[in-house]
Structure formats: structure tokens, C-alpha cells
């Protein structure tokens, strides 16, 4: 099977993007969404996640290693392509390009986000509503996070579309078109969830709830 290494890596890359990373993204955005119910509700949800049993194993095998592989192999994929949207401005060609741009942005965003939250937590900081409110009080960080969350929801939704093609689930043009609509709805829905959570952290009314 050695000669099929690229094939296996690429399929693994596609799979990991959906399971577990995509699932984790939805779970993460859902926990964040508690912020729309106020600081206390968010803190309770965050602390519940923190107190899950064998948390470190969950983090390593469901989050850390899959994202690391997906990111490194993804960069390798980015460097193999030469975008040509100026010559071929088709819809899917733009999606191809944006998928790569958001991927690279997410690499930077997630690295920074993990440093700001998870790494600080292991250094003794408390990851809670106030921490996020503090981070997002800077308008630079707010924009950085807004683009980060939108990149993540786009990259996941469009990646889900490619996953369906790459594994041979959607073959016909009609099934691929239906998948385009379905993943567009997923993108909008997840973006609404992510944006409401982000904006809740800069809402002074919610901070005191």
C-alpha cells in the first residue's frame, strides 16, 4: 500500500475535516452560543466542558492531532495549486481558492486562539466570559475573531461539499448541486450561531447576567 500513500493521506485529510474536526466545530460553537444567555450561562457551559472525564485524551485525539494533521497536509495541498480565478472565474473555482485562503487564515487564527485560551488555561488562567470579553474589547481582536469564525464556518461547509465528492458520495451534477445548497444553508446557520456568540461577549447587558 506504500505507493498509495498520497491517496490515503488525502482521503484522511478530507475525512478528518468532517469527523472529528467538523463535529468539534459545531460543538464548540454551540457551547459559545451559551454566551447569548449571559455570562453565567456561558461559564457554566464552559466549566462543564472543562470537567469532562479524561479530558486530555479527548483533546489530544479528537482535537489536537486531527487538526495538526489537517493543517500540515492542508498547507501541502495549498502549495500544490496555482489559483487561476482571473482566467477561469467559475463559481467552483472561486470556492477552491477561498477554501485555501480560509484554510491558511485558520491556521494562524487557531494557533493564536489556542495560545490565548487553552494554553493560558494550562498556565492557570480561568477561561470564562470575562476572558473573552477582555480579548474582544480590542476592536482589532474583534475583527480578527469575526474573520476567524466566518473562515471556520465557510471552510467546514465548503469542505463538507468536497468531502462528499472526494469520497464519491455525490457523483451526479444534480446531487452535487443539491449538496451546494445544503452546505450553503449550513454555512449561514453556523455563521449566525458563531456571530451571535461573538457579539454576546461585547454586550455589557449580558456580562452582568
Amino acid at each position, binding site marked *: 500500500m506504500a505507493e*498509495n500513500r498520497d491517496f490515503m493521506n*488525502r482521503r484522511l485529510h478530507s475525512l478528518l475535516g468532517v469527523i472529528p474536526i467538523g463535529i468539534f466545530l459545531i460543538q464548540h460553537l454551540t457551547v459559545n452560543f451559551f454566551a447569548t444567555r449571559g455570562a453565567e450561562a456561558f461559564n457554566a457551559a464552559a466549566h462543564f466542558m472543562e470537567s469532562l472525564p479524561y479530558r486530555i485524551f479527548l483533546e489530544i485525539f479528537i482535537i489536537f492531532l486531527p487538526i495538526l494533521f489537517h493543517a500540515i497536509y492542508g498547507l501541502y495541498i495549498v502549495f500544490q495549486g496555482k489559483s*487561476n480565478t482571473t482566467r477561469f472565474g467559475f463559481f467552483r473555482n472561486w*470556492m*477552491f481558492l477561498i477554501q485555501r485562503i480560509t484554510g491558511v487564515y485558520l491556521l494562524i487564527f487557531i494557533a493564536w486562539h489556542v495560545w490565548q485560551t487553552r494554553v493560558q488555561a494550562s498556565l492557570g488562567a480561568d477561561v470564562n466570559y470575562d476572558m473573552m470579553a477582555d480579548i474582544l474589547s480590542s476592536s482589532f481582536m474583534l475583527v480578527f475573531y469575526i474573520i476567524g469564525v466566518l473562515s471556520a464556518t465557510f471552510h467546514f461547509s465548503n469542505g463538507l461539499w*468536497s468531502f462528499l465528492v*472526494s*469520497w464519491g458520495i455525490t457523483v451526479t*451534477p444534480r446531487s452535487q448541486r443539491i449538496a451546494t445548497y445544503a452546505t450553503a444553508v449550513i454555512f449561514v446557520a453556523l455563521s449566525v450561531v458563531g456571530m451571535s456568540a461573538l457579539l454576546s461577549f461585547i454586550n455589557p447587558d449580558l456580562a452582568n447576567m
Partner: protein
Amino acid sequence: MSEDKQVRFIITRQDSPDNEPYTEEFNLTYRPNMNVISALMEIRRNPVNAEGQETSPVVWDMNCLEEVCGACSMIINGKPQQSCTALVDHFEQPIKLEPMRTFPVVRDLIVDRSQMFDSLKKVKAWIPIDGTYDLGPGPRMAENKRQWAYELSKCMTCGVCLEACPNVNDNSDFMGPAPVSLVRLYNAHPTGEMNKSERLEALMGEGGIESCGNSQNCVEVCPKGIPLTTSIAALNRDTSLQAFKNFFGSDRA
């Protein structure tokens, strides 16, 4: 008409594979129903550029002159296509001609597409029927299936889909969409099917189907209207199954 209508061409030229490309402009007298090849023939007959200087004739590749061989493919006003069916009336002036740089340029508009031929060999894009004795007639193909397969068989290895693919370039060894679609053709043939897994294995090798990034430019540009992205997705399905068989084993060949 006091003065004849003129057609202006801007042609990207290159004297040899190692020389730097440059552009040269030509003005030609318009003739009704003129196409890009007839214009190039006119330049060959009278190789004088727009400045009135004598120059070397522009060289290009051609064969069938009816869009079935693919040899005359080049980039016309930014879009890769066959120059033999490119009518001058359908283009904005000036008409820009460039070689398809995805392939090594031999000279002027001539490129070397042998990488496509190598890919066809790699994926065994043929049906092996040679034996030491007469194998007799093969199984019949249903008429509706034959009609469907005929569409896939129209590929003329022109290279337009490779030129349009963002993943076919110097940084990647991706063979491009055309050979993938041909695997579908030969795997669908009742006799060709006997070597199905060999072709799938070749597609799963280096530079194979996995390098497709789903930009789907190929299906938009193919002059033969071949459903390339449907073929790729269908082969994605077949290679997925093949990978499971390879990994878990199968009691069928």
C-alpha cells in the same frame, strides 16, 4: 470600401524551449469566415509583423482541422481552445494567441503534450485483447450504455482541461482530469472491465485522482462537453471501494 478591414493579432512567441517568450504583433487583411489557423497560414505565407519588418514565420501545431485531434489547442484571448474552429468573427480584437504553458513550450505556439500520453499509459487507457490464440468476440454492450460511453470516448487529449486545472502545474504531479475520465470509459467496457482494479490502482498512485481539488474548471472548458467532474466523482467512489478492499481484503478479485 476604400481600405480593407484589418485584423490584429498579438502572438506570444518563443524561439526554443530555453528562450524567453516575447510578443509580436501582426496586421492581416480581413477575409470572411477567417479562422485563427487561416490567419496563421497567412502569416506563414507572408511573415511581416505590424511594424512592417520581415520576421520568422510563427509555428503552430495542427492536424485534423475539424476539432477531433486536439493538436491545434492554444490560448486565444485568455481561453484555451482549438484554433482550427476559432472563427475570427467570434473574438474581440486584437486577438491574443499564447501557447498552453501548462505544457513545455517547444516553439511559439507548439507545446509538448507527451505527459498526457504518459498518463494514458500509466492508467492503462486501452482494452487488452492480444493473446496467443483467437479469443473470439467479446461480450456485447447494451446500446444505451454504448451511447453513454461514446460521449466519454470523444476525448482528444487536447490538454485544455489540464490547462484550466489549478492543480496541474510544476508544483504537482497531478495527471489531470482527462485520464481519469478515460479510466471510467475503459472500466465500463465489458472486456475492459477485466482490468478494472489495475486501472484503479494506477489512479490511486502518485499524481492520481487524489490530487483533484474540485475546482471543476475542467468540465466548464472541455470542448467535447465530456462530463469530467462526474467521471472524477464516480472514480472517487470506485477508488474508495478499492481502498476498502485493499485494506480489509476481499474474496473477489
